[in-house]
């Protein structure tokens, strides 16, 4: 092997460690070593983090034998996503390890957990289309195990929704990929630049990845799933796995290399609607997880809008990419922090202390875009992107952003209200939870300020008028929230939830039951047997008649005559 080859192999090996480590741990979980392995659970993220931090960029290695042509590598976008995911998974790993310490099914849960983790890391590092798809599917299906882990009826139902949508997404994605490969003739992601994206592919890709981010018609799984998933895992789901959808769009619709105005409209409209809808849906729920889910739908809607903006043309794409990434990082960190906060509530047997409350408020308001938070930076970046795009979009965003900010604020306050006085049962790992929460809060506060790409936007966001622009929606949101609380504190939220559940599930149940074959049908007597048994008496009779001498005589004569006739 040449040194270059050796190097490539080494690189490939190192990269595959990111997904490989969790997978190895999954396999070890099948062995009696499982207890020891589970103790090391958070360490599964370490290779990924190390790679994200240290591996050289823009090296692509081909692993020809792997799954119909494997390609992997790390680029800048990937590095950020990997870092982010690694961090979130690390925290989630600590959290779930301590949370589920006494759970009977912890091995099962953690196998799914690790598999989802592996999928998440793997898809970030994948540079081939099929590789991406592979890890994406791995992650999606493994996440099902996290969603339904509790095994309650609610969880199962949520899982069913999740699974249905995942399947739809998978299938859409499969179709999209096939068409892409057919048109481009290659499975290499970079080769899609020259492909003309027809409406079908766009829709398929939107559906395929949109499921993951809860884009509007495909959002159904998100709120129930966030509610039923064990919270650390939900944090990973909301903070990392959801991003896979965004990354998928980025990979398959390479912003900056394509222009696709029709797609842009699709994405922007869908995103905009989701941004509003998420808020409304979140406010409709009284369950903290579901509220966060609503928020995710909303925030992901905003991201979808950003992505849509980038789709207009190459130039817009170039501008949109960093904004998109900033927003993703911001949302992931904030959302996972909120989940960890929620986790804290659930684990301690008493209501939150003031300090804790304040700490939770930080990511909450960051989501709303309060100045001096990562939210502000993200919003600023958004706005500047809109400016770059030109008029109709700028106007729209000038109107739209504050509205969503107000909505998010209300939603976050609603969230705070939901968790403020709730007290969890005394679950293990309070200390761990606190540490995690602290770490995540620090993460929300710190990284975006320090990150080179965001510097610009950060300084812009604190500049004069921007500050004001950032504050008023939050303030307005607070106001509106309190008014809303006064008016309808006791709206029939639960009933509402119930109704929606019934609507969806009854359809599923009816269809399934319609298809179910009737139990214990009478064992079908064979038609052949019946037929023969009816015929038998006649046959016996006929044979008997043929055996009579008279008939024999007749046949004898007949045969003589016929043969004579025929032969003469």
């Amino acid at each position: 092997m040449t040194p270059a080859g050796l190097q490539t192999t080494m690189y490939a090996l190192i990269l595959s460690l990111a997904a490989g480590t969790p997978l190895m741990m999954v396999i070890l979980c099948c062995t009696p070593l499982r207890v020891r392995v589970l103790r090391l659970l958070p360490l599964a993220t370490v290779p990924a983090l190390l790679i994200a931090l240290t591996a050289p960029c823009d090296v692509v290695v081909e692993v020809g034998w792997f799954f119909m042509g494997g390609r992997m590598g790390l680029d800048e976008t990937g590095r950020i996503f990997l870092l982010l995911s690694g961090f979130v998974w690390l925290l989630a790993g600590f959290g779930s390890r301590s949370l589920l310490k006494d759970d009977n099914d912890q091995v099962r849960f953690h196998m799914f957990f690790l598999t989802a983790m592996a999928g998440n890391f793997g898809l970030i590092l994948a540079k081939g289309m099929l590789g991406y798809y592979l890890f994406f599917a791995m992650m999606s299906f493994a996440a099902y195990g996290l969603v339904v882990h509790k095994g309650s009826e609610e969880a199962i139902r949520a899982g069913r929704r999740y699974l249905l949508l995942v399947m739809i997404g998978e299938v859409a994605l499969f179709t999209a990929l096939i068409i892409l490969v057919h048109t481009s003739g290659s499975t290499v992601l970079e080769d899609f630049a020259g492909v003309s994206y027809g409406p079908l592919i766009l829709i398929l890709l939107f559906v395929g990845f949109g499921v993951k981010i809860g884009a509007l018609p495909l959002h159904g799984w998100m709120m129930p799933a966030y509610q039923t998933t064990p919270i650390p895992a939900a944090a990973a789901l909301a903070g990392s796995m959801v991003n896979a959808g965004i990354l998928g769009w980025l990979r398959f619709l390479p912003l900056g290399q394509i222009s696709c105005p029709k797609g842009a409209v699709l994405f922007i409209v869908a995103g905009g609607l989701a941004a509003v809808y998420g808020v409304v849906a979140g406010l409709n729920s009284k369950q903290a997880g579901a509220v966060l889910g609503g928020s995710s739908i909303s925030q992901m809607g905003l991201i979808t809008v950003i992505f849509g903006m980038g789709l207009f043309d190459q130039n817009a794409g170039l501008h949109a990419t960093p904004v998109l990434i900033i927003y993703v990082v911001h949302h992931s960190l904030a959302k996972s922090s909120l989940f960890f906060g929620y986790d804290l509530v659930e684990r301690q047997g008493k209501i939150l202390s003031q300090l804790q409350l304040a700490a939770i408020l930080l990511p909450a308001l960051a989501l709303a875009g309060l100045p001096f938070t990562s939210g502000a930076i993200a919003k600023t970046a958004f706005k500047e992107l809109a400016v770059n795009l030109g008029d109709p979009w700028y106007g729209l965003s000038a109107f739209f952003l504050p509205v969503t900010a107000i909505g998010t604020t209300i939603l976050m306050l609603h969230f705070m209200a939901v968790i403020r006085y709730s007290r969890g049962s005394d679950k293990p790992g309070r200390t761990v939870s606190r540490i995690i929460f602290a770490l995540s809060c620090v993460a929300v506060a710190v990284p975006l300020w320090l990150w080179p790409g965001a510097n610009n936007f950060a300084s812009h966001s604190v500049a004069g008028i921007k500050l004001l622009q950032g504050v008023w929606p939050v303030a307005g949101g607070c106001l509106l929230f309190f008014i809303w609380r006064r008016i309808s504190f006791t709206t029939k939220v639960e009933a509402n939830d119930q109704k929606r559940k019934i609507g969806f599930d009854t359809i599923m149940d009816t269809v399934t039951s319609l298809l179910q074959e009737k139990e214990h049908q009478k064992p079908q007597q064979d038609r052949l047997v019946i037929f023969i048994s009816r015929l038998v008496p006649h046959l016996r009779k006929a044979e008997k008649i043929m055996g009579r001498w008279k008939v024999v005589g007749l046949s004898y004569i007949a045969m003589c005559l016929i043969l004579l006739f025929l032969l003469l």
Partner: protein
Amino acid sequence: MITTLLYSLTGLILFGMGFFTLIIHSHPLRKILAVNVMGTGVFLILVATAYIPLGQGEIDPVPHAMVLTGIVVSVSVTALALILACRVQETSNITLLKGTKQSEDIKETGA
């Protein structure tokens, strides 16, 4: 030639009569007799075949030999058939010598 034909036709008619009886009458003994009549008919034709009017040449001995063989065969079969009929009569209700109707047809066995 006429003689030959006359005998031959008589033989044929015997054959037909025998056959008719064989089929119509159900009694074993009659059947055996009927078959014998049929045989006689055939032998008659055969012998008639050998007939050559006097002075027109040698008599063909081959049909004679054939008839002889046929008769022997017929005797053997008749003997066997009679014994069989007796056995059948012994083991079932069919009467060998009296009555003809009730033994309408020999029952199909098995089935």
